[in-house]
């Protein structure tokens, strides 16, 4: 009975995380199209509205993600005749599942976390590494030159940038002295200058840019560079394609959440310890700060997409191996010295 109760409770908790997450994913696509549309002097989606929802539903285009989902669901799933059917179907799942599973250890506010494990950071690294299998398997199973080329590029890129990302996380681990994400946030206690983005600035930047590369977003979107080889999911259609799409956006939100937790103080208020502002904002719950920070990182993701052209593939690899990995290695060394010297205010 006890076990059943525990199982049910966990299931409910999972649903409480996953359903809003999927909604966020859906409306991230809407936000992306609106924001980039604004930057590109056009309107973005402005036809479908949801008048059943009171005020917000009347915004033009607000129902677009739902219309898109319905459209994709009713589309036929085409499986190429020489494709490996099992792998072809399983590949989107392999891409999507890790992006959702990683949310198990993300603390939304103090103590508000599904599973408070001590090896949280390791678990995140493990999960984000699995995501690349979805890409490789999709390219392989499609039995198409374009898909295979796209998946090879994407896999090489993800693996290269994972190294730089892993080193950046080593820096966080050294600074916080813990693998538990909650404790990493607690180690950044104080106002926004106490957060890790300042002492770990090079690692923060490397992590942010690697995050963009890791999610195959512009300007590192060679995997689906539509003007080159169309990408690893050329052969996919309908809901299978939509799952890849959802996985990409879920990964974006995940990377933003991790950046927030590890470098931007998670749920902490930016005004802690500042005389006038702290009491003024004392009523704001931690989860609001968390969501606000995640949103700003997401906005950054969209912003660079509208601003930067795509790097060439060899340039991306060069940037990863010859610039980012050395930077992180050097800064880990510097960080060790800073910690030994007990540099205030971060490591005192």
């Amino acid at each position, binding site marked *: 009975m006890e076990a059943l109760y525990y199982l049910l409770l966990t299931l409910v908790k999972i649903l409480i995380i996953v359903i809003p997450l999927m909604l966020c994913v859906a409306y991230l696509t809407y936000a992306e199209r609106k924001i*980039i549309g604004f*930057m*590109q*002097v*056009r309107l973005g989606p402005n036809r479908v509205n949801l008048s059943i929802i009171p005020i917000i539903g009347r915004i033009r285009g607000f129902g677009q993600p739902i219309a898109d989902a319905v459209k994709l669901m009713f589309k036929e799933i085409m499986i190429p*005749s*020489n494709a490996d*059917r099992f792998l072809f179907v399983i590949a989107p799942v392999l891409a999507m599942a890790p992006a959702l599973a990683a949310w198990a250890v993300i603390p939304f506010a103090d103590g508000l976390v599904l599973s408070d494990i001590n090896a949280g950071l390791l678990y995140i690294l493990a999960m984000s590494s699995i995501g690349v299998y979805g890409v490789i398997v999709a390219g392989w199973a499609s039995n198409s*030159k*374009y898909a295979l080329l796209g998946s090879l590029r994407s896999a090489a890129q993800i693996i290269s940038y994972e190294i730089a990302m892993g080193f950046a996380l080593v820096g966080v681990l050294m600074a916080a002295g813990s693998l538990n994400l909650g404790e990493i946030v607690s180690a950044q206690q104080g106002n926004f200058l106490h957060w890790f983005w300042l002492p770990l600035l090079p690692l923060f930047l490397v992590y942010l840019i690697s995050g963009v590369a890791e999610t195959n977003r*512009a*300007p590192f*979107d*060679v995997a689906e*560079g*539509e*003007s*080159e*080889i*169309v990408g690893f999911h050329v052969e996919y259609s309908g809901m299978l394609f939509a799952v890849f799409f959802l996985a990409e956006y879920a990964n974006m939100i995940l990377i933003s959440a991790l950046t927030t937790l590890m470098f931007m103080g998670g749920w902490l208020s930016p005004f802690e310890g500042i005389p006038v502002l702290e009491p003024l904002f004392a009523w704001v719950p931690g989860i609001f700060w968390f969501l606000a920070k995640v949103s700003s990182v997401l906005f950054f993701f969209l912003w660079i997409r*509208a*601003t*930067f*052209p*795509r*790097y*060439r*593939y*060899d*340039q991306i690899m060069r940037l990863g191996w010859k610039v980012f990995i050395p930077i992180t290695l050097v800064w880990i060394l510097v960080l060790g010295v800073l910690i030994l010297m007990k540099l205030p205010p971060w490591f005192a």
Partner: protein
Amino acid sequence: MRPENYQPVEHPASQEYELYFGPNHPGIEGNYALKVRLTGDEIVGIRADGGYLHRGFEKIMEDRLWIQNVALVPRICVPDPPPMEETYARAVEMIGGLEVPERAKWIRAMILEMSRICGHLFILGGTAAPIGQYSNMFWGVADRDYFLDLFEALTGARVYHMFITPGGVRRDIPDGFLDKLSHILDYLEARLPEYDDLFFNNPVFHKRAEGIGIITQEQALAWGVTGPNLRACGLALDVRRDDPYLIYDKLEFDIPTETSGDVLARTMVRRSEIIESIKILRQIIQHLPQIKGPIRCNLPNPLAWNLPEGDAYARTEAQKGELAFYAVSTGGAKPWRVHVRGPSSMHAVQVLEKLCLGGRIEDIALIMFSLDACPPEVDR
């Protein structure tokens, strides 16, 4: 599950493989195919395979009256039609010995320069799109739209104007048109620094474009490269200056050049040409009100209009390069032969193949757009 009779395709023991680029490909402007042989990402063989937009203009023109062809020629190249009309009209005028009134010449020059700005805005956006920067493309298209509005006010059509007819132009400029034009030019000039920030000075774009698709001066002359692509190699050759037509000998303008001959140089030449065209248009706005007179010479009944026997070769500096029409008349109501020398057919077939060879697959689309190759005009 594989079918029973599945036979894996045996390839020779080689690292090479073949990819089709087009005819419907997001990185290609219009329908145009490229067969690419690759080892890894490197191009070891490339063949341009056009013909998907072949509409047989030169043959159709032989079957229509001289005046009917006015409606046909702008369709040869979609983004930049007025030079086609102008060149055709000039070839007809040379055969028929028609004298174009002064005011019509100024109006023609104005519409040609407006079209040049339009085409450059369009293709500068196009250069950004294959490397994933769609903002610049949308900006270019949005700003081009202001010029299309002007075209609409002037000619009644946004893209295919059919405005320049043999002997003059179809209509005089409407009231207040020059003020509107002046206003749009001010706007565009104020907007160019924003384009600089977004695109021309973008470090990632420089990284992509420097040293890619280099044409040397000797190669450019040997391959018949013209227009901005030629000027990007450092040769200041321009039909407007070398063989002035209309009123270009009365205007002051520079011929912008770059030296490196790569994708970046070609892009920067186009940017400078927008500024030069703005300069030219300002001079036209200043002079045009003083020039009075008819806008068209007297034409015979166009349905029974027999041109005398003869031939003529007219050339124009179009937005994409040197455009020429060679028209032959045997004294009938229809042309005996009209040949179009389009700039893009040189750029898109031979030059594109040679520039891509040894490069990387990602750069194909970038090189093609930087050459400003227009598939409809290649196929004609």
